[in-house]
């Protein structure tokens, strides 16, 4: 290990720490208190590591070869600006949701939900999310997806009640189909190029038949599109999310769809920068925004309403990706960060509303503004943030996207600018409708008299405050996302970081050093020369 990448030992920690802690929590299943302590300590450590990586990655990507097997033979973990930023936001949000669920568990204090399972599964989920953000290998990306998906299946069907099994059936089957499509795409990528390393794919993909490359791109987009819940692949989301426990729904809504969006950003910029799918993506973005928000307007259940706004706002991120300009990408990344926090906050607050009002149906809620003024504030801030009211972060993200769209200047880009403004207005309409019905109507007579646990309110408030903090720190954050977008456009930096001189031959570091000492001269310097080395692929043929 050279002194320049001395921080790279931190890179695997966000994956390894939660996994080890998950095992520990499973062993200590008898003590809910010990499990809680383990989870909180682990996720705090992960947050600290993520923030360190966020600062360190600003200077250049940090790369770690897993097991010291050099890329492209081994799997590598890469923390560049985008990965580190996503990692930090997800760590902060998962920690907030964990505190919320701990407070809820203490408040409920019943044996109905098997908490013994909750903590290990939740930690595996965070490990899976971190793995997808960090990996530099297409197959490892699939493994990360599976980790978080399997954990999410368990969390969604926690307790195994009728409604959750019904919702889980839809969710599990749809997710499995998307996984199958993803595996198929990986198999075909390997068949076409002979590698699944992202850095190596950047110069092998342009060499294959363009039609095949386009087919691979579309296959990957379908697989990630199901996970990101874009039109027409989103119908599973509003049917499955609302039935899960509030903290579970919050973390799903905040992170799982964004993992899909992250995968789209990564593959679109790194593997397929020629932008042949951009027109398609623009149409998808427009349809996602408009159809999603129209669905939200029709809903009468606040959890489903918020689920539909989640779908709708994925369209904004796809819009930014489809523009494929540095400004568009920067705005999309900013929007992802904003949306993770605001959507998680909304679902946490909706969980509190359900607790206080005894229902999620807007018909049965009412008068919450008088009954619980603090709750009203906690709902109002993220709701306005989602609708894009200045000066909150949603406004900044939307302005960035609209500016990027106008700068693009195409007819479709203008249509998307119009669509995003209309969607923003309809979002305002939907959340104001929810506000009117739940907070302003006269309270129903049978409103339950419950006190909200302080821990839950505190955790929800801290996630809401994080969303407001994004607006306060808007300038530096937007600067960071712009630099992240730049580094996404500059693929050579990523490739040379992953495959630096000598390592790209597929030899481990020691071997390369020995070779250098022996004065061997076939250590490859240029990426293009790697092709001749055969990479990972031995000769086929019958013996």
């Amino acid at each position: 290990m050279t002194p320049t990448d001395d921080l790279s030992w931190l890179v695997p920690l966000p994956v390894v720490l939660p996994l080890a802690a998950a095992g520990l929590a499973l062993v200590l299943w008898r003590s809910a208190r010990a499990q809680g302590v383990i989870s909180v300590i682990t996720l705090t450590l992960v947050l600290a590591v993520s923030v360190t990586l966020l600062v360190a990655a600003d200077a250049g990507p940090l790369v770690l070869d897993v097991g010291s097997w050099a890329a492209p033979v081994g799997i590598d973990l890469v923390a560049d600006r985008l990965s580190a930023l996503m990692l930090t936001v997800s760590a902060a949000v998962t920690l907030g949701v964990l505190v919320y669920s701990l407070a809820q568990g203490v408040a409920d204090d019943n044996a109905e939900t098997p908490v013994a399972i909750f903590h290990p599964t939740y930690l595996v989920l965070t490990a899976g999310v971190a793995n997808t953000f960090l990996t530099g290998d297409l197959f490892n990306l699939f493994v990360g997806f599976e980790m978080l998906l399997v954990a999410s299946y368990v969390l969604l069907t926690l307790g195994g009640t009728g409604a959750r099994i019904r919702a889980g059936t839809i969710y599990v089957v749809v997710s499995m189909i998307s996984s199958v499509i993803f595996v198929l795409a990986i198999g075909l990528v390997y068949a076409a190029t002979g590698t699944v390393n992202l850095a190596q794919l950047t110069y092998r993909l342009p060499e294959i038949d363009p039609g095949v490359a386009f087919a691979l791109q579309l296959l990957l987009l379908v697989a990630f599109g199901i996970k990101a819940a874009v039109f027409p692949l989103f119908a599973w989301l509003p049917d499955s999310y609302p039935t899960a426990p509030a903290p579970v729904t919050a973390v799903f809504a905040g992170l799982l769809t964004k993992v899909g969006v992250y995968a789209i950003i990564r593959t679109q910029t790194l593997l397929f920068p020629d932008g042949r799918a951009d027109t398609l993506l623009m149409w998808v973005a427009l349809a996602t925004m408009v159809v999603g928000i129209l669905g939200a307007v029709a809903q009468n259940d606040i959890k489903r309403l918020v689920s539909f706004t989640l779908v709708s706002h994925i369209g904004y991120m796809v819009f930014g990706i489809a523009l494929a300009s540095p400004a568009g990408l920067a705005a999309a990344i900013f929007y992802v960060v904003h949306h993770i926090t605001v959507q998680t906050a909304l679902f946490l607050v909706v969980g509190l509303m359900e607790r206080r009002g005894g229902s999620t149906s807007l018909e049965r809620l009412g008068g919450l503004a008088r009954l619980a003024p603090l709750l009203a504030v906690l709902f109002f801030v993220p709701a306005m943030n989602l609708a894009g009211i200045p000066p909150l972060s949603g406004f900044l993200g939307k302005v960035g996207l609209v500016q990027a769209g106008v700068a693009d200047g195409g007819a479709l880009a203008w249509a998307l600018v119009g669509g995003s403004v209309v969607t923003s207005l309809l979002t305002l309409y939907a959340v104001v409708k929810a506000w009117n019905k739940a907070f302003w109507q006269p309270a129903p007579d049978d409103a339950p008299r419950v006190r909200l646990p302080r821990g839950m309110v505190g955790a929800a408030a801290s996630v809401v405050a994080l969303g407001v903090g994004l607006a306060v720190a808007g300038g530096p954050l937007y600067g960071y996302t712009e630099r992240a977008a730049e580094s996404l456009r500059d693929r050579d930096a990523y490739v040379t970081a992953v495959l630096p001189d000598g390592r790209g031959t597929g030899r481990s570091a020691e071997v390369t050093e020995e070779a250098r000492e022996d004065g061997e001269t076939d250590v490859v310097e240029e990426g293009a020369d790697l092709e001749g080395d055969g990479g990972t692929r031995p000769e086929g043929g019958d013996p």
Partner: protein
Amino acid sequence: MIDTSPSLALVLVAAALAAVGIYLVLERSLTRVLIGVILLSNGINVVFLVAGGRAGGAPIVGATEPEAMSDPLPQAMVLTAIVITLGMTAFLLAMAYRSWQLHGHDEVQDDLEDRRVAQRAAAHEAALGTEDEDSTLEQEAQEAHDDVVGSTPPEGHVRPDAGGAGRVESAEGGDVR
């Protein structure tokens, strides 16, 4: 140049498995969906074998000449995929069993809230006074109403009695056309 020409038999096997799998996934019974998912995954695993090129000797240094080796990487990936599929199969089986415990069948159910929205739409239609010959929305809403009334989620472990199980069988029998 590496010989990447795939075996036609493997391609046909993959296509057949995937086609049967997709057909079964579109069924409404969770058990059939499960079998469909298994077949589909196995079809994709065969695709990985195709991706590895021609079959060769065991990829162990010393046992086979490097030129005659099979490509080990797709095999490693297939192993991972198989393990994941195994775990998923177990989970889906558990869900199908739980669904049978709760409802006496393992059919994928409609979403209640979707039905409620349809119900409201039907009510609005009636208010507007449009006479629709095929009043499908209204019928649907009526069904939805029955569903909503009749299906308060059961709290305990409702184990279906022998009669319930028999009913499922007869329903299944009716399903086979």
